[in-house]
């Protein structure tokens, strides 16, 4: 199993959209896939039309896989399951703080019920807290969507230095550009500037398109509902590039 986190300290950068659409592509290829919606806002769960059950809370999540596994729901699509978000995740940091091995809890939890899946996608809350550190330890790959703005690039640099300071492996960080508006000069420049260096940024950029925005209306992955749209094509390209990087065969 490979654990893929979609993370950015900043919100509204296309993190959830990437997670929803890429996870669908993974499952559609026949790979058993699980999405863990760790963001208390629960946007991923919403897109998949899944509500958490009343009894689901953060303590259960951390008590271990078996309790959490009971909360896993099948989506409307083959091979794709989802662990829905819960509003009580807001308090996750506080709960974690009181625990031993508090940075490894998420990894331990995932270990117990992930053997059934090829990929686990983590949709992460936008902040830099103890939850984020749990994610950094649990994930094999951390995909960082960035809007190509100066501010966004700065925040990625901040993440890099945090990784270095905490001695996390920076090689697991993989930024890619999302919500790219070609018409806006600043976006294009930033993309091209990064393209020139090409060090860590993925080749594929996800364009800003209203189709993506409309996902909230039809509540299904864009890659499923409009497989031939421009945005879908971009997600396909990105997924192919990600798989190559992860050493998967097409």
């Amino acid at each position, binding site marked *: 199993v490979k654990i893929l986190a979609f993370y950015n300290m900043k919100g509204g950068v296309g993190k959830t959209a990437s997670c929803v659409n890429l996870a669908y592509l993974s499952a559609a290829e026949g790979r058993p896939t699980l999405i863990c919606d760790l963001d208390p806002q629960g946007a991923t769960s919403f897109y*998949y*039309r*899944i*509500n958490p059950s009343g009894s689901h809370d953060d303590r259960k999540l951390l008590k271990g896989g078996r309790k959490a596994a009971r*909360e*896993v*729901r*099948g989506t*409307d699509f083959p091979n794709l*399951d989802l662990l829905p978000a819960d509003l009580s995740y807001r308090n996750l940091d506080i709960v974690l703080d009181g625990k031993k091995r508090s940075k490894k809890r998420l990894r331990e939890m995932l270990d117990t019920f992930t053997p059934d899946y090829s990929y686990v996608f983590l949709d992460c809350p936008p902040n830099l807290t103890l939850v984020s550190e749990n994610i950094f330890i649990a994930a094999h790959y951390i995909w960082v969507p960035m809007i190509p703005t100066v501010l966004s690039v700065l925040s990625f640099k901040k993440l890099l230095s945090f990784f270095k300071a905490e001695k996390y492996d920076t090689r697991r960080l993989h930024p890619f550009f999302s919500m790219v508006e070609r018409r806006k000069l600043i976006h294009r420049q930033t993309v091209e500037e990064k393209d020139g260096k090409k060090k860590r940024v993925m080749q594929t950029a996800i364009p800003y398109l209203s189709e993506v925005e409309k996902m909230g209306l039809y*509540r299904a992955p864009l890659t499923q509902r409009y497989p031939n749209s421009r945005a879908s094509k971009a997600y396909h390209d990105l997924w192919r590039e990600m798989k190559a990087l992860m050493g998967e065969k097409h």
Partner: protein
Amino acid sequence: MKTIHYRLPTKHLASLKKELFKTFAGVTEEATPAAPLAIYDTFDGGLYRKGQTMIQENGLLRIFDIQSGSDLASAAISKATAPRFHWEYPEGSFRDHLSGISGIRALLPLITAKKTKTMFHLLNSDDKTVCRMHLERFVTDEQEAIAGVTLSPIRGYRKEANAAAAILSAIGGIRLSHHPIVFVLEKISPNPADYQAKPVLPLEPDMPAVAAVRMILGFLAGVMQRNEEGIRRDFDTEFLHDFRVAVRRSRSLLTLTKGVVSPEVSAVLTADLRAAGKATNVQRDMDVYILDQGVYEALLPEPLKPAIRPLFTTLRRRRTAALKKTKQFLAADVYRNLQRHINDYAAQDSIDPSDAPQADAPLLALAQKVITSRYRKVVKSGRRISGETPDADIHQLRIECKKLRYALEFFSPLFPPSDMTRLIKQLKMLQDHLGRFNDLAVQQEFLGAYLDRMTPTTAGAIGTAAATGALIGILHQEQRHLRAKFSDVFDTFDSADNAERYQRLTGQKEPSK
């Protein structure tokens, strides 16, 4: 949660949708129009016995697990009828799966039906699918209707699945431990699931011997009769093989149980059975060679491989002629009378006249006597074989072994199964060795005769002659090798342990070394 299968009474189908709408916030359905479906298996139900079946529908062949209802392998098919043999399928996982099951047997379409399929998606108030229901309705060509539902729960929505299950029960659905397709399989007649070539009959230790003989003969005549169609239509080689084994078993039974059947009846039956063997010998010989074509080619060095092919062309031609003879025999009076005589005899229940002194002997005592005497004969002939013994004596030992084998198999219901399995396995090892030895002798003789009749003048014919000669040489080598190993194989059979096992079985003293 796993899928759950139900059988539904067809008259309640209409109320299903109504009930679903009552319970769920939404129901969407995808209906597939009626499409023909064909079910395949080998004559002896090779797939069915493994809990599988092969279904052809919508240009697709699927091998299907009857219990779970899931596909084990599938392949696209463009022809109207699926290829008979696994080697006729394109290479790949489907063919691999099939070859492990069908072997040299043909896959035959056994039943056809029309299938209508409807998939119900049961939705909650978010329009999220919370359960799926797969309704299948089969109508066989005999107009028998069967309806089944497969309930596929979705992870995390157990309550909704239970609600759907409750609806199915309420409208008369019966929960199954397998896919409803079995009810279609049950309509196949005659059913491959109940084909058995080997007699396993409810014999009792104290029944009169003649009653057992009648029962076994009647069973074997049934085996012959059931294979007739497959022989006539030439589906595969195993119909004739099973037919011939039933003929040999019948003859052997009459010899082994001398004194149980009156000599008059026995003589008539034996003569007709001998005729049945004789009339089909050539076809079977040709079948064996042709089945082994690949083996022969593999034995030859690369340049000689294509040269041997004309030999097989000749053999196939001979087989065609032989098949015609076989078919004539099946239609002839000799065979029709044989069937009638055996069936008449099997249907009687009187004790035979005074010239059958063993007729009312208790079966167990007779069986023990027969097995002991056969075992002793095998041991005696086997021990006489040395490096100088002519091949004919080894051939004789092979015959003795066969008789012992049949005796063990006929009477096995009288003895503990574990002992019988062990004894048959031991004997089989010896028989396999002798059988292979005999095959090699017969093949060399056959190839020699083929070579004798050749007057090769063309380059092609000279090549064929050379390849035939090479084969004779290779087969001879292998035969010598088997000969050298004979005493080891026989000693394993002729062990003190094995002797003790026979003694325990028959209550007779073992022959001393």
